[in-house]
């Protein structure tokens, strides 16, 4: 099964003719992803690694029957590209682009909600279901098919964790990097729910970091909904307190947002929390 992306994913790459787009089209195809088309305005009719390029998402979707897209376009063009994707008929949109204005992200997510489209990101490494498909930029070599679901707010830290799981012989059902921006399309809670409901997934690794209250909210959700074992690592236990949203932010946070608060919240609902990334694999191995 896996979550969100699998062997039925038919992917369009938005920004396929750019450096990043080309490179990752190749890497995704190697991973086994069914890349059915690309979009770059003005480059319709070209081919990139055997993949046909279209001028617009509408055309691409109607010509290929695509159901997912991945976006690599620069931040200042991202809103337009994301709206185009959400409006094109695909059901999943993965936004790799970083430095997306937070108001643009807000508008994109309001529109995706209206249209019933799942957005992952922005500013995320994407998602991979080993043995099935990867829609993202994570290195192929770190994955191994298995039954552990991974959800993470970080980019490279996701690689670190997935890699250490694989090195310990623990395969993944799906690993999803939801992105570290304040406003993101897919949250810990969304991913936890899907992993809980996914038959292939037997346990879940949740990688958080300091700042925000997403981990505390996830802990609440785990208490209510998740019965599978959850393992976690919260980056930044020893980091200095990050930027805060001033007094207004403090009202929302109510003392949450620190590593201590997050770890406490997670441990109180039975999550095993590692002190350093590599310890997650140790915790899992003890249980299986």
């Amino acid at each position, binding site marked *: 099964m896996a979550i969100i992306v699998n062997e039925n994913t038919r992917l369009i790459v938005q920004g396929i003719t750019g450096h990043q787009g080309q490179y990752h089209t190749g890497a995704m195809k190697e991973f086994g992803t069914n890349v059915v088309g690309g979009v770059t305005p003005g480059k319709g009719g070209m081919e990139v690694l055997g993949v046909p390029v279209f001028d617009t998402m509408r055309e691409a979707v109607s010509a290929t029957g695509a159901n997912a897209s991945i976006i690599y376009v620069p931040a200042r063009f991202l809103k337009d590209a994301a709206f185009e994707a959400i409006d094109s008929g695909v059901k999943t949109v993965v936004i790799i682009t970083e430095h997306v204005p937070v108001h643009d992200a807000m508008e994109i997510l309001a529109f995706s909600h209206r249209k019933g489209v799942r957005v992952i990101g922005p500013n995320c490494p994407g998602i991979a279901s080993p043995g099935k498909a990867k829609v993202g930029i994570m290195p192929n070599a770190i994955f191994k098919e298995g039954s552990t679901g991974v959800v993470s707010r970080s980019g490279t830290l996701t690689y670190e964790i997935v890699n250490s799981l694989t090195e310990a012989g623990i395969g993944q059902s799906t690993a999803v990097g939801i992105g570290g921006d304040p406003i993101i399309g897919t949250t810990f809670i969304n991913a936890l729910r899907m992993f809980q409901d996914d038959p292939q997934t037997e346990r879940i690794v949740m990688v958080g970091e300091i700042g925000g209250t997403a981990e505390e909210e996830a802990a609440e959700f785990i208490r209510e909904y998740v019965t599978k074992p959850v393992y976690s690592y919260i980056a930044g236990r020893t980091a200095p307190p990050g930027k805060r949203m001033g007094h207004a932010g403090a*009202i929302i946070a109510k003392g949450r947002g620190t590593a201590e608060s997050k770890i406490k919240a997670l441990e109180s609902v039975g999550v095993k929390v590692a002190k350093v990334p590599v310890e997650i694999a140790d915790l899992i191995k003890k249980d299986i």
Partner: protein
Amino acid sequence: MKLFEYMAKEIFRMHGLPVPDGYVVESAEDIRDVRNPVVVKSQVPIGGRGKAGGIKFAESTETAREEAKGLLGSEVRGYRVKHILVEEKLDINDEFYISIMMDRSTRMPLLIASADGGVEIESVPENRIFKRTIDPTIGYNPYIGRELTKFTGLTGDTAKQVSFIAGKMYEIFRSEDAELVEINPLVLTEDGRVIAADGKMTINDDSLFRHPEYKGRDEELTPIERKAREKGIAFIQLDGDIGVIANGAGLTMATLDSLSLHGGKAGVFLDLGGTDSPEMVKSAFELMMEADPKVIFINIFGGITKSDTVATGLREALSSMDVKVPIIARIKGVNEERAIEILSSVGITAVSSLAEAAEIAVRRRNEAAGGD
């Protein structure tokens, strides 16, 4: 980027949101004749100025200039004062709190208000705080103002003015790509005006490309911080002495956690922000040298770039620098064995396990520090 009070108030004024009469000076001599009582406010990007002595009152030109002289160049809560805002002193009848911020949970703007203004809003009891999510697809509408004023017990003309101000704040929040717009206190004067006596704004950094008007108006950076920002590298000064370079915020923090587990403490860290390009690593290394750490710890998890390419770049960079402190590199990704070879050849201790690298780095630091 956090705006100084005087900049926030400039924006308020442009949008028709009432602010006190006033102007900003960089030197005490620029203070004009004082006819009515004024407030002399040091401009620092942090709250709690009043308690820290950063706000003075004056009833004469002479006093005003004296107070300004005292404040300019002084340090208020860790920030050097370079600007003074001189404003009419308001006759305060009542003080409210109001703000709009981006709420991560709902992914929408959140309007917060309280009749208990002028104090730290965290100290106000929860049941005295009005919170209201604003759906960005419809924006601010008058009914939200009615809910706000009903909750906070405002009536009549005061309620109308506060509703109007809330609407203006939302307009500013959206048009300026703000993460936060805050007024505390929002003052009701003796003569019935409602005025923003203070103003805080944070502009979303990622939106600055479409707000050229803010260019060069951000808080002051040290030369090294400015250099880092120009390169797109996050630079954070800490109180330890191991210099850390890593790619990605999460991995950087995980690096600190790993060092900490072995008893090490970072003195400065540079986050390359998810990239692993040799150029960025090289730039980070140059910056790092200026921070003068006891040991340098590099932790790169290769994504797009092959590890050996990163290592080659780093070797080149080092060949043109005179680095005296030990360098420990944790390098992971495609061709990591080759990368480790390359780095070892120039005297860098390179390994692929983060735990092992962290342990070595702390050991070297302890050796370098001697009996510290």
